[in-house]
């Protein structure tokens, strides 16, 4: 065989082997989250477990503050070098899907999710019937109260109605001690809007109905009036309300130091409360949202989070990302039939949404703090996931803050909120 012939054969063999060599090469995927360093360490440990069975896939985790998460996804997600996986809030999904920043889930993943998660959670991770993400956490709002302050004020049980709620807030207020009955939040959109929305749905109202804003309803009017009452009567002090999504600031400080009697907050708040209160965490109890005069029973607002895959990432990266996410959220990856994702979430006091995960964590979900949240989950109303939802939320935040600071009356706040929401949702739908 001549040298030329041998060279040609070698070249042909190399060309044939090239694609296989390409697949065997390692695939690097990155995971963008807003979790704390302790939680990121748990995710990194799970990624390490995954790499024992998938040695060709390397997962790196990157964390940014919650306030920068959407901006990072928007500014870097449009590139193949951006994060391969992102943890997102369901409210952001419609616009990310419209802008083709997130990839639809492969059929196998979609079928698994549809069979293993509750239908409401699946729908929040879908747009136009197409599933875009694997849901992981679900958050719901409830009334948190300080049992010690209740005892001192002579209040025997948490309020069940708005009348009892206002009465309890008045009894818990002691201006000389700098103590307020009910703590509102400002300076953080979801923190402002979700407690208001929980009171609204417990009064038989809705933020959005059939895709249109419903803030002009009598039920919404009563909820705006409740806020005005709480502020005017002095049982809620807006100067004690500043907060951000990293749970820092006066809102947290005042509740953990026993200067706020009641708040409405979500279950993920548990880890911040434990850190802030230490042994005094046992003083915190959870109760359903008080029912308004037009409501039938306690409801609250729920929202979910999911992990999505960058639509601009390469084919191999997308495939590896879906494999990693399917494993991370499967009962095979965690302890005692739970998913590794649910173990990570439970370390923060966050409720997992996969049906088998709820079963696997039954004992911990029965704790005094979390059981109050689990009990209200069945009657919770999902926060409306619509195009323009984030802008709608920020606009309502401005209106509610203006009401908190006495810049507008309840009546004007209601009219402004409805007008703004109508214009925002109409523009987004174009």
């Amino acid at each position, binding site marked *: 065989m001549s040298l030329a012939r041998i060279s040609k054969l070698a070249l042909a063999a190399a060309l044939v082997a090239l694609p296989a060599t390409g697949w065997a090469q390692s695939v690097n995927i990155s995971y963008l989250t807003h979790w704390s360093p302790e939680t990121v360490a748990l995710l990194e440990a799970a990624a390490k477990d995954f790499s024992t069975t998938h040695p060709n896939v390397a997962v790196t985790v990157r964390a940014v503050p919650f*306030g920068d998460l959407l*901006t990072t996804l928007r500014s870097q997600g449009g590139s193949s070098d951006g994060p391969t996986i992102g943890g997102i809030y369901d409210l952001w999904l419609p616009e990310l899907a419209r*802008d083709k920043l997130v990839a639809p889930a492969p059929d196998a993943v979609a079928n698994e999710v549809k069979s293993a998660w509750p239908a409401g959670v699946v729908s929040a991770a879908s747009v136009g019937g197409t599933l875009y993400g694997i849901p992981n956490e679900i958050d719901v709002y409830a009334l948190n109260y300080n049992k010690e302050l209740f005892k001192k004020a002579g209040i025997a049980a948490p309020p069940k109605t708005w009348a009892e709620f206002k009465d309890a807030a008045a009894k818990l207020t002691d201006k000389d001690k*700098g103590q307020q009955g009910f703590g509102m939040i400002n300076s953080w959109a979801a923190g402002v809007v979700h407690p208001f929305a929980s009171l609204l749905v417990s009064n038989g109202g809705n933020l959005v109905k059939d895709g249109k804003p419903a803030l002009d309803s009598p039920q919404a009017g009563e909820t705006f009036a409740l806020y005005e009452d709480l502020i005017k009567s002095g049982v809620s002090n*807006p100067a004690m*309300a*500043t907060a951000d999504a990293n749970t820092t600031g006066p809102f947290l400080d005042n509740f953990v130091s026993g200067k706020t009697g009641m708040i409405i907050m979500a279950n993920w708040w548990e880890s911040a409360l434990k850190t802030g209160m230490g042994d005094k965490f046992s003083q915190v109890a959870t109760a359903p949202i008080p029912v308004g005069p037009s409501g039938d029973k306690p409801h609250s607002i729920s929202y979910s989070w999911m992990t999505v895959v960058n639509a601009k990432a390469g084919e191999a990266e997308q495939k590896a990302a879906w494999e990693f996410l399917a494993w991370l959220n499967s009962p095979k990856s965690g302890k005692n039939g739970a998913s590794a994702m649910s173990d990570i979430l439970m370390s923060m006091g966050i409720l997992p949404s996969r049906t088998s995960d709820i079963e696997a964590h039954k004992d911990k979900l029965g704790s005094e703090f979390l059981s109050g949240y689990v009990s209200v989950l069945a009657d919770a109303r999902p926060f409306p996931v619509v195009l323009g939802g984030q802008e709608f939320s920020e606009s309502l935040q401005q209106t509610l803050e203006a009401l908190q*600071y006495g*810049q507008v009356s309840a009546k004007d706040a209601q009219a402004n909120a409805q007008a703004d929401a109508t214009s925002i949702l109409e523009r987004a739908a174009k």
Partner: protein
Amino acid sequence: MAKAFRASAGIMLAPAVTLIGVFVLLPMLLTIWLSFQDWSTQTPFSEASFVGLGNFHEIFGPTSVGRDFKTALLNTAIYTALSVVLILPLSVVFGLLVYQREVAGGTALRTVLFSTYMVPMIAVALVWSKLYAPSEGPLNQLLGLVGIGPQPWLSSPRSALISIVLLNVWQQVGYFTVLAIAGLTQIPGSLYEAATLDGANGREQFRFITLPLLRRTLLFSAVIAIINAVQVFEPVALITQGGPVGSSNVLTYHIRRVGIERAQGGLGSAMAVMLMLSLIVCVSALFAFVNRKDSE
């Protein structure tokens, strides 16, 4: 000869002009073009659709988009005016104090003043958000010692923006003091000697010698202070996120929210164009004012 000179000047200027054109003028022109388009920042420029003055109509309109923009524009104007009004006189005062060479510790004081300018904003934000804390914050505790009740600082729409201005003044005044000292060194000592012989007291010397001869330095300081203040972003993003009730929402932070977070590139560009125009008008007016004074 003149032709050859023009050609060689053109060749020598070409690299700099090209770089400025590509990296400064082109983005500015692109922003102006985008301000007339309906465009999502997540889509290619080819998907932008012409809307004429629609974006400008929207940002000055009665809806939440217009209200938020006008509030942010006003907040930026207040922030800028307060910053300049506080920083410039303070920098002259500190400059005069530090420039006294015979005063012991003058160099140390100069170093301390300038050091605040070198501290990263993230560290400043962390420290000042704690200083301003309503109950356990040192500022309120100090006020309590002199019988003044606790102030809401960042927690009130009335004081949040002013609190951010104070933080800015604290951080920037050292830099402007150094500029003032540089200006003072340019004033010949013989003028003061002559004035002293003529019987002028310190106040008169300041009014008729120092201040007029510092005019150029102060103009430069004012322009830099205005540009710095208009571009404020970090303290708002790190401490108040524009709240409460949008009272500390400044234009750069708002443009980031609209243009990047909400991906409304057309609206964001229209806001950026308005910011640019406002800055050009302010700086031009300042130059015109000083030039008129000079010619008088």
